[in-house]
């Protein structure tokens, strides 16, 4: 398995270079360094000389990908792409375009993101599996029928609606929790209850319906009939056999997102004023801060690759037939 992990890690390097290159290309198709300078300096009274000064101060005064005027390897190294990208592989994210240290920002902002994402993930997963198991257990009954109807209704409603309705009812009309905001330590709990509940509620419909389908598919297989024929109770069949065998498709979707919990939720963090990495990314896109966008895409890609690797490893844990070679 170690060799497999090592090989996958090495595969990650060209993927990350490719992602970096695509991010670079896409960003600079839309924004030029002059646009970035104007965004930072403001739209008023900015002369071309000031723009050039800003570009020089921030390292955007070089050619993008190929420096024809330089000699030797500097043709490649004396470019915006090389100077801005290579350091990422040493996890040196540098400073944002407005001069703030990105690593310090990430260290600060990851905790609020995780404080919201982990409860939503854990509670949501437990609730989805429980609800799906209940529907599968009571399959072809009114409980199953109305459960599916409820799931379809819930998954048809936009997350934005859950947020606005939740804020209106729970925080404004009933005055039960703050509408938005955040604090550190245990003081964060009262700010997280509502967004976490909304996060869970908005995912229940799609999640439960999907897991129900997985469970029903497993329940139609021969080994389940055999288990029943052996006289096992339905509860034992469901929890010891069906749930276990349905774990592989569940893990496929679940484990891959675990590392990405770190990246935060763009919508929730914006609406609830949670200072996490999701809102950091949105702010960076809006302010055309390439340094932050590039760093967040890099981290996102890395975490996604890590998630896929963890998914592969998790298969071996739930299914002894799977071997990583």
């Amino acid at each position: 398995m170690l060799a497999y992990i090592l090989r996958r890690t090495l595969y990650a390097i060209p993927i990350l270079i490719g992602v970096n290159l695509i991010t670079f290309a896409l960003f600079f198709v839309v924004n030029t360094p002059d646009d970035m300078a104007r965004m930072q300096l403001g739209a008023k009274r900015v002369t071309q000389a000031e723009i050039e000064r800003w570009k020089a101060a921030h390292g955007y005064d070089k050619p993008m990908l190929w420096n024809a005027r330089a000699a030797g390897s500097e043709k490649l190294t004396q470019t915006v792409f090389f100077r801005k990208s290579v350091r990422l592989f040493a996890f040196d994210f540098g400073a944002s375009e407005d001069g703030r240290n990105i690593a310090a920002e990430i260290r600060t902002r990851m905790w609020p993101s995780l404080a919201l994402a982990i409860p939503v993930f854990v509670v949501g997963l437990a609730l989805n599996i429980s609800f799906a198991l209940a529907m599968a257990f009571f399959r072809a009954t009114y409980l199953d029928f109305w459960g599916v109807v409820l799931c379809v209704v819930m998954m048809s409603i936009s997350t934005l609606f859950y947020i606005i309705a939740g804020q209106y009812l729970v925080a404004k009309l009933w005055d039960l929790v703050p509408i938005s905001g955040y604090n550190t330590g245990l003081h964060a709990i009262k700010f997280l209850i509502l967004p976490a509940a909304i996060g869970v509620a908005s995912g229940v419909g799609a999640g439960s319906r999907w897991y129900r389908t997985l469970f029903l598919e497993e329940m139609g297989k021969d080994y389940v009939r055999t288990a029943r024929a052996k006289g096992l109770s339905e509860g034992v069949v469901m929890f010891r056999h069906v749930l276990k065998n349905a774990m592989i498709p569940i893990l496929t979707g679940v484990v891959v997102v675990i590392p990405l919990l770190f990246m935060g939720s763009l919508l929730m963090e914006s609406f609830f004023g949670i200072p996490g990495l999701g809102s950091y990314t949105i702010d960076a896109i809006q302010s055309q801060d390439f340094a932050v966008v590039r760093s967040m895409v890099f981290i996102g890609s890395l975490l996604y690759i890590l998630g896929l690797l963890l998914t592969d490893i998790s298969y071996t844990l739930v299914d002894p037939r799977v071997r990583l070679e």
Partner: protein
Amino acid sequence: MRHIGFLGLAAACGLAAAVAGCGEVWNDPYPAADGGKNILYSTFVARPKHLDPALSYASDEAVFTQQVYEPALQYHYLKRPYQLVPLTAAEMPRVSTHAGYSEYEIHIRPGILYQPHPAFARNAKGDFLYQSLSPGQIAALASPYALPGRGTRELTADDYIYEIKRLAHPRLASPIYGLMSQYIVGLPELAARLKRANAEMSAEGRGDEWLDLRKYPLAGVERVDAHTFRIRLKGRYPQFAYWLAMPFFAPVPWEVDRFFAQPGMAQKNFTLDWWPVGTGPYMLTENNPNLRMVLERNPNFRGEPYPSDGAPGDRQAGLLADAGKPMPFIDRVVYSREKESIPYWNKFLQGYYDTSGISSDNFDQAVRVSVEGQAALTPQMRSLGIRLRTAVAPSVFYIGFNWLDPVVGNAGGGEAAERARKLRQAISIAVDMEEFLSIFANGRGLVAQGPIPSGIFGYRAGKAGINPVTHVWRDGAARRRPLADARRLLAEAGYPGGRDAHSGQPLVLYLDTVTRGPGDQARFDWWRKQLAKLSIQLEVRATDWNRFQDKVRKGSEQMFFLGWNADYPDPENFMFLLDGAQSRALHHGENAANYDNPRYDALFERMRDMPDSPERQRLIDAMVSIARNDAPWIWGYFPKDYLLFHGWLSNVKPNDMARNDVKYLRLDPVRRAVLRREWNRPVVWPLAIGLALLVALLVPAFVGYRRRERMAARPAA
């Protein structure tokens, strides 16, 4: 099973009764210990990019910088039109003019102290305590204020000089360097020397080290004595006094610059751009621009007295009740970040923010506009004790015609130019800005009759102020000219019925604008409809800000929608938007329409440097008349600010030129605490119902599960 259901319901009811009896407020976003304290709660939407006075140019950053930094001058809080008064200066600058240059002598009041800060801290021997910190020591700090020692020192003229030099710092890229280098003698030369010095330091691997600006003289700035300095400008630039009221010209002590330049500081985000240090009434003690910014009273602040005089009506409005009392009145200011308008508005209604603007979504809930156009609060707002203040902003939004365009501009020359002028006038009549304000801004604005907004010298109200090209004065009000006038002008322009008289082709015009999303479609449709009144087809080319700016810079647009916020309350700051020398496409200036009329330009040159006087008004009138006739803009509108605040806050007066208004505000925290409790009693019955519902669902499920587990095998069908 029935027992379980009853038990659950009883538990839920018990819980509900218990919590309802507590009388606590559950939704308070602030620590309970802060209840009843003299703290102002406000918001910020966008995270500030810069708090360094040499870099910060945005109004949402000025909210913080102007409480901390003190330039030599400030705007009078109450008087209108806006008036400059001394802040740290003992008196207004003495201005002397000489052959080819002018000089500003500024005398700073002695005895002004900086806020307590580790950068000034010294030991018993007089050596600095924290100017040689190791990277390890810095890495262990949570904030610069985690260092236990504090110090201060007196404000001197050298600190102002140091900051002026920072405008030319190669590592800072100040947005006003380009403008100031045209005026301040020696600034370009200083920038060149600093650039060389910085390059040498970089070559030696010391590119991040502190660049001591004291070693580099600036020819145009002279230290007279410890509290006096002179700034020499090329030629005359009377508007320079306004710049002296901006943070760009606030003092920066070299000790602070050196403190933050220590290796390891930037990696912790400990920079002057992040942690401002000044002499103002407040100091920034918590800087988390993702969540919260906190200002606390500067214990070294000298206690500036509240103004004793103001504008007519201020005394009756209670704005002079604190006259002569030492400021600030508030101990602490907590700015929370609110990116979305819904939570912001609801928290204001719950009493958790002391002031609020009004978004379009909430306008009808907050304000009713009478048929006479008077805005008043709704009964709901009045019942909460909320008050409203309005003011016309020193801003203008307009639709410009590109002067370089052959159809709507002057590029055709001769007869074609005259046809284009009539076409512009016809369109100016047809575009009904009164309707635009009513539909898209809830009536929050004044229809512009020229480039100068109300409240700025040169503005004329009433009949004397109407634009005769687009309006007539009837029944005591400005009325838009009938469409028949526009159609006549259109025919004279060679487009009868919206078609080219020669080719018969329909007239198609193009409007460039920035789009913010699908919500803008209604605005675009409205514009099309306005030109359709003249049978002119309008193509709206909506794009992002960068592409839009690019088109305007190249002069490739035909018509465009744009706005301008004043830097300072002088007519020059609006009239220069039509100065030919400021053409955006030709000279990279601020004249986005590229309008060019030598008569206008000549009058502008004369008006620009004049003090406000009848003669200046006469010149402005003449210039406005020329511009109205040429119609390079559809004059658009001047937006109106609506500010709501709770009854426990006093001394509130909108001030669009300055943001150092916190020191003037007073609040009654006890009244606020009482009302907050009254307004935010938790409603717990939904919790009980939710719990009961859960039990009602779980119990049958559990019963069903048990029944199935015990069920005997069913016979095959």
